[in-house]
């Protein structure tokens, strides 16, 4: 059984059908790409998968469980984590705390335990610090843990966002333009990191990206969206040679 099965997904804003009849099937451990010209509805798909928007049609099934229309917090608990196209970190919190918030639902103690500083507080905080530092180390952010998130340079902010998403222990990680604004060296490094993360955490990754060499270099399977509908799907090679895709990109509004 596939990890994520999306069938006939659609959403309309007012009269505009932003996404229509979309099917997606992401296997366990797969690196999946979602591409398409600007305005094709890629981020809208992410927003439906993570509960920010409620789909007007269709189903989203994660690991055999129907999660269609659940609120974002519940979907996170069900096992989908994401990053955002325009980075959304907790700017005034420390780098370490950004990741620790991500651990929120994995290391629990209640409010009174925290206020009264009961033994469980120290124990859980200790475990959270350890786990958070482990994640920071993977993204080479361990030296900056005391800085606030807003003090990090752009590239590191993108990494911190991924670390925070991973802290929720997802089954599926959604990355919205992870390589945006990175130079070729950073992009290459990011490709390795994503593969490493997939292998270490045994998760699937669905990503939106405009950098074609990045998508072709990393994604095992790709869906192309255009005007909210699926234009093509297949491996990188199949997509590259698909005449519809070439036409959409050359004649498109991008």
């Amino acid at each position: 059984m596939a990890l994520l099965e999306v069938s006939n997904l659609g959403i309309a804003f007012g009269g505009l059908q932003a996404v229509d009849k979309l099917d997606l099937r992401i296997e366990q451990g797969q690196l999946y790409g979602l591409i398409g010209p600007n305005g094709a509805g890629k981020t809208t798909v992410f927003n439906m998968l993570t509960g920010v928007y409620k789909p007007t049609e269709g189903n989203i099934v994660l690991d055999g469980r129907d999660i269609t229309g659940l609120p974002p917090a519940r979907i996170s608990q069900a096992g989908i984590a994401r990053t955002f196209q325009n980075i959304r970190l907790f700017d005034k919190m420390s780098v370490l705390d950004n990741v620790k918030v991500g651990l929120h639902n994995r290391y629990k103690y209640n409010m009174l335990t925290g206020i009264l500083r009961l033994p469980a507080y120290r124990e859980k905080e200790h475990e959270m610090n350890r786990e958070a530092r482990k994640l920071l180390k993977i993204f080479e952010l361990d030296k900056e843990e005391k800085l606030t998130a807003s003090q990090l340079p752009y590239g590191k902010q993108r990494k911190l966002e991924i670390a925070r998403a991973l802290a929720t222990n997802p089954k599926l990680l959604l990355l919205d333009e992870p390589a945006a604004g990175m130079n070729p060296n950073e992009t290459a490094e990011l490709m390795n990191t994503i593969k490493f993360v997939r292998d270490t955490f045994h998760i699937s990754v669905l990503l939106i990206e405009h950098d074609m060499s990045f998508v072709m270099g990393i994604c095992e399977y790709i869906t192309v969206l255009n005007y909210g509908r699926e234009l093509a799907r297949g491996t990188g090679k199949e997509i590259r040679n698909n005449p519809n895709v070439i036409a959409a990109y050359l004649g498109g509004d991008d």
Partner: protein
Amino acid sequence: MQFLSNLIGGVSLGSVYALIALGYTMVYGIARMLNFAHGDVIMVGAYVVFFAFCSGGMNPLLAILIAMAVCTLLGVTIERIAYRPLREAPSLAVLITAIGVSYLLQNGALLLWSANPRAFTSVVSIPPISLFGGRLTIPGNTLVNVVVCLVIMVGLWLFVNRTTPGHAMQAVSEDRGAAQLMGINVNATISLTFAIGSALAAVAGALLCSSYPMLQPTTGAMPGIKAFTAAVFGGIGSIPGALLGGILLGVIENLSKAYISTQISDAIVFLVLIVILLIKPTGLLGKKRVVKV
């Protein structure tokens, strides 16, 4: 007949609320901020009219024109100094700044003009109309409030929908970034919005104090908050909404004063606000906005 009289009183008060609500609704719709100080601009306008007309003996229309000029200048200056630098700042910061401006105006007025209430002479000299053989009297103030409010509403609606600066306002309200890219001067448009809102505040101040002839530095605060309620009630950003919300609120307030209790009539008005915000935060005529992620 008593009921009708209370109803008419409510419409009269509501017309003034509607005028004030216009200032809130335009600024909220276009600059995306709650201009907390708007009520205090009304107070300043009323003081100018007081000194020019009530104690200065000037022609009332001229006095109101002067007050409009002063308030316009005040509104634009406030926007330029306190609000414009915060245009890209979090809304919390803008709101607190606006509260600061409101306090500044109130306390400035307190220093300049003292806390002593001034007895305001009505700017209206039209005699009351007697109907049904004298069983129903409509005061001149009421007639003027309603007529002025309607004329301004229509005028403003035409301005926003039929003129180039009006279209610019609509564009900025829709999407500030896109409007800027289309060559619209966003800062000038917002300044114009504050200018119009503040000029109307002066008119509202004169009418408010003509109906309730007591003027103090805090005079504008409560009507200001209630008028914001009216703006939300009608649907923030909508000119007909301000009219509808203002009138309804005025009627609700007057009727609860007459039939429930004078003491808790304010509580009832605020309760209405809370209920509306909870049930229909977009108001009666407002549009829903989608948050971009």
